[in-house]
């Protein structure tokens, strides 16, 4: 199977591989996919007090396209607000990496991973700050 240059680049030089402390209140973790299906992505975001994603890390079990999709989204989400990150669609990822049709599910998984990480962060954040003053930020 021929991969696009961008997929090869992300596969060979993955950005932001690693882990953040999942117990840190400012970190959101998304774990999506399933080992039996051959793809698992773990995406973590670290969110600043003003709601900006200041760091992102990933680890992925999967093919080159899955690794590239998750590597790419860690680049994309950094510096974005949660709402902005929420708007990343799998079609953007697939288009950017020129994924063939059989690999579209890799980009879907990457979109799911961002959403799962944001949801996890918001859940933690809401629990932490039961004070209603901050609630508007989440909406």
């Amino acid at each position, binding site marked *: 199977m021929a991969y696009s240059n961008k997929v090869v680049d992300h596969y060979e030089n993955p950005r932001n591989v690693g882990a953040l402390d999942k117990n840190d209140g400012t970190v959101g973790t998304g774990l999506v996919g399933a080992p039996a299906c051959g793809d698992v992505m773990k995406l973590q975001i670290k969110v600043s007090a003003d709601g900006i994603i200041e760091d992102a890390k990933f680890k992925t*079990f999967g093919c080159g396209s899955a690794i590239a999709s998750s590597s790419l989204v860690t680049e994309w989400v950094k510096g974005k607000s949660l709402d902005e990150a929420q708007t990343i669609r799998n079609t953007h990822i697939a288009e950017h990496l020129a994924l063939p049709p059989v690999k579209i599910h890799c980009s879907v998984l990457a979109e799911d991973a961002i959403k799962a990480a944001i949801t996890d962060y918001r859940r933690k954040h809401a629990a932490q700050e039961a004070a209603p003053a901050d609630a508007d930020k989440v909406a």
Partner: protein
Amino acid sequence: MNDFAGFTTNKARGSNTNRPIYLDYQATTPTDPRVVEAMLPYFTELFGNPHSRNHRYGWDAEEGIEKARAQIAHIIGATEKEIIFTSGATESNNLAIKGVARFHKDKKRHVITCVTEHKCVLDSCRHLELEGFRVTYLPVQQNGLIDLDLLRASIADDTVMVSIMAVNNEIGVIQPLAEIGRMCREKKVYFHTDAAQAVGKIPLDVEAMQIDLMSISGHKLYGPKGIGALYVRRRPRVRLEAMISGGGQERGMRSGTLPTPLCVGLGEACRIAEAEMEAEALRLHTLRARFLSRITEQLSEVYVNGDLDQRIPGNLNISFAYVEGEGLMMGIKDLAVSSGSACTSASLEPSYVLRALGVEEELAHTSLRIGIGRFTTEGEIDYAVDRIVGEVRRLRSMSPLWEMAQEGIDIKSIKWADH
């Protein structure tokens, strides 16, 4: 290190052109230069139609073909009249299974095969089911071998044939042919074996093993592609219905002008394989042991799929836990290997052979098939080990599953999403 008939191994493999190291000998093999040499005259001066009976051109071609037929017969302990040329093992399997079943359809309506057979066997059996036959697909044990008691229990009064492969193409395991043959003879059932991966790799004897039909492939034993053979026993005679109508060549079982150069190539490939089998098996065995011990010395959680002892020496099928097979292959592009991962197939299902062994899906996704053969060198093995170890380590360091395993989290305890 090995120099075959004056051809260096590098030339034979073409490595001086920067091609990847070839470790996929179960997919196909390069044609041995000696085979090519034997074939060449039959393209040019000896170009006659082997079925032309009236002139020297025809006789010369026929002579080449009959010599090849004898060479093929010899490597499996058959006689030349029992060898039918075909286009390859797929055609041989189709002809054997459909041909025998259809010929006996009035009295016998049942066929037995096994779940790890090659697709062309399974698909031929599916076709028979559409024609009203019953087919039993025997499961395999964890080591990839069939259960003989289960086979015995599956043979019914109207069973026409048992078709069990000699050597599996993915995991290289050798089925107990002699035992199956004895059982089939005793029960008066034909025994067909797809020996595409076995001929030239392990000793085969259709008499000792009581085999009635055997499929042979040219390109799996350093012969050309596009040629194969079917052994069809004469005593007691096996009857089958031809699939191709025409001039009645090959004793009426397979019409069509024989491709003389290809037939000659298959014959020469069999001659070489027979002469060198013992030494080659020993050499490949040593290379494989070297590969495996170097891998397991450096990597943990590596699993060999299928029985390691009952296996041809040129095959290894290994799962590298927590590293997805296609992802791994992408990192070792300078090695030509094959993977049982879903991503390498159109179906997105992991290998049905590995699943049949009970290999869990997550491990099936992490498998590589390493096929070593006549032109593989020790240097290539060492290089491959280094590349695989390095890449597995890199990919494990970025695998969330490896991370969980290191933290002591059982990945089975997590509720994963359904895909």
